[in-house]
């Protein structure tokens, strides 16, 4: 037991992910990212493409290991682990990916795909594993008798994602990282998979890191939501709060741009200075959002704002947060 377990089952401390370029420069994918997730909690991570949310997720998985900072799961520092110890620890954190078909080996049967984690971990006899695979498949809503000997191409995208979930959960991990796990699915199927994830989370007491660009999807599964922009954390708050009262100008921009499926919703002005996301190779000085932020002032160019509490359960990194308009 360390001090961190009190406030974070999963804790990310000053996480930094950089990718070297041939030119000798670096892509600053994630910079100084700090967050804590309680046991049994789902933290949603949202942002637009290139904001670093997938890099942050992969850094948690140690795939690859972050350039700097620390990832702690239940008191164990994952960034310090190597070889066998890391493999051993991996049983406790598993991941599902965006493309459900590409993430399953087309040459393997569903039985072998779902049994692979058990085999790698050396758990049980072949017969034991068969029983366990059947249980997992039924749990995710796949008819085990019919599915076991088939291969991924015989299944739809939604079914493949269920199979990926079965594989991820067969080692009974504590932490499940979902990287755009429902983004490739049609809405009717997406709803099935989201309901499944919610049910499994409750039944198995999972802690989840749920990454998505879709703010409505994130709201449905998350207890708390973190918003990223250009590798930095802008705002983190309870799901209810961040949608009802976003205080970071970027969070507001993002929320105002979501098209609502309601013809009577008043047309909203997207409050952003039109323009492009700056390059993560050469991010702006100070706050990364200042080049498109309608509230930016001189200090924003000089100093990166610290992430600071602004209300109960809400933290923001902004020199000019929207505190005046509730």
């Amino acid at each position, binding site marked *: 037991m360390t001090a961190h377990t009190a406030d974070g089952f999963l804790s990310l401390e000053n996480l930094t992910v950089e990718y070297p370029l041939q030119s000798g420069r670096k892509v600053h994918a994630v910079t100084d990212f700090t967050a804590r997730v309680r046991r049994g909690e789902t933290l949603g991570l949202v942002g637009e493409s290139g904001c670093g949310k997938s890099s942050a997720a992969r850094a948690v998985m140690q795939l690859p290991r972050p350039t700097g900072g620390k990832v702690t799961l239940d008191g164990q520092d994952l960034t310090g682990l190597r070889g066998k110890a890391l493999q051993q620890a991996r049983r406790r954190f598993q991941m599902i990916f965006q493309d459900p078909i590409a993430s399953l080996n087309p040459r393997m049967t569903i039985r072998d795909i779902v049994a692979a984690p058990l085999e790698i971990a050396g758990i049980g006899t072949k017969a034991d594993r068969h029983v366990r695979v059947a249980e997992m498949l039924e749990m995710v809503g796949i008819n085990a008798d019919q599915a076991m000997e088939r291969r991924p191409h015989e299944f739809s995208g939604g079914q493949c994602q269920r199979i990926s979930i079965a594989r991820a959960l067969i080692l009974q991990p504590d932490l499940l990282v979902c990287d755009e796990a429902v983004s490739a699915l049609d*809405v009717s199927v997406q709803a099935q998979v989201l309901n499944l994830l919610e049910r499994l989370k409750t039944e198995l007491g999972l802690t989840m890191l749920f990454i998505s660009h879709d703010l*409505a999807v994130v*709201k*449905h599964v998350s207890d708390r939501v973190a918003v990223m922009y250009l590798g930095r954390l802008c705002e983190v708050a309870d799901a209810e709060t961040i949608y009802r009262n976003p205080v970071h100008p970027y969070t507001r921009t993002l929320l105002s741009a979501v*098209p*609502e499926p309601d*013809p009577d919703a008043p047309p909203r002005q997207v409050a952003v200075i039109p323009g492009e996301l700056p390059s993560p190779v050469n991010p702006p000085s100070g706050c990364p959002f200042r080049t498109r932020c309608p509230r930016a002032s001189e200090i924003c160019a000089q100093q990166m704002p610290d992430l600071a509490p602004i209300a109960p359960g809400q933290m923001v990194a902004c020199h000019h947060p929207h505190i005046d308009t509730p």
Partner: protein
Amino acid sequence: MGDIILDVRNQKTAFVTARGMAQAVDGVSFTLERGRTLGVVGESGSGKSVLSRSIMRLLPSNALVPADSRVILNGRDLTRMTETELRRLRGPEVAIIFQDPMTSLNPVLTIGRQITEVLTFHMGLKRRAARDRAIELLRAVGLPQPDVRVDQYPHQLSGGMRQRVAIAIAIACEPDLLIADEPTTALDVTVQAEILDLLQRMVRDRNMAMILITHDMGVVAGRCDDVAVMYAGRIVEKAPVRDLFHHTRMPYTAALLASIPKITDPPHRKLDAIEGRPPDIINPPPGCPFAPRCLRADAGCDAEKPVLAGTSRHQWACLNPLGEEAPA
């Protein structure tokens, strides 16, 4: 009735596959008036993209279209035209924007060249004049520094900028009809809002008609006048946008609307998923294609394929539509 630009009658498009005949579009009829935007919404495999390519007559050689399918644009039947005639008409009368601007633009030509090509071919502009017009068009679609960008290649632009270029090419010859096939699906939400604003403005300012194909009910709600919902190659409901959302008749439309996670919902609300999945279009069920997943289906639905019924304003293809319960 306004000025009808497009009249699609009983469009059927099938593909010969190794497993058999896939009926991707199965008898679609509708008209579209000048100045209006029709949203075509459906899940993957519902036939919405094949429909757009059928209208454009941009179908692969293994596509089968029966002789009684008609696409009438400005009073002329596209199904009776030769490829040369069609080429002259694509651009000045109808243009299309695709989902992925990286693959729809030619990677080895400058964007200026790709716009001037259209202008010299269709409008007979000389090189200098075409270049000036290209810069003007790029400015009109909100591309920053159009005089610099005109000499750049697609890979030097972001996804949002590429889609602006694709729009510039599409509107270069001032078409009467613009087909936008998932134009913002590959883009981030803030960029999506900008591109949809741009399309809406172009349609209004130039008095065009637009078919906006999307899987996103949010985009439909905010950007279209009328909506056609597609399922298994057929239009299953068509109405003005407000009627479709507030007086939904087809159970599939209702189920689709209910399954969408809404940003106004409280966290962790259980979603009303539609069980099962869309039918295999190679072996469709004999009756209503939605019947196997429909909570209102009865024996009649499995036996008979319902046709679009209702009024000219609001149509649905259902034997047990919503909103017709016997008064208690």
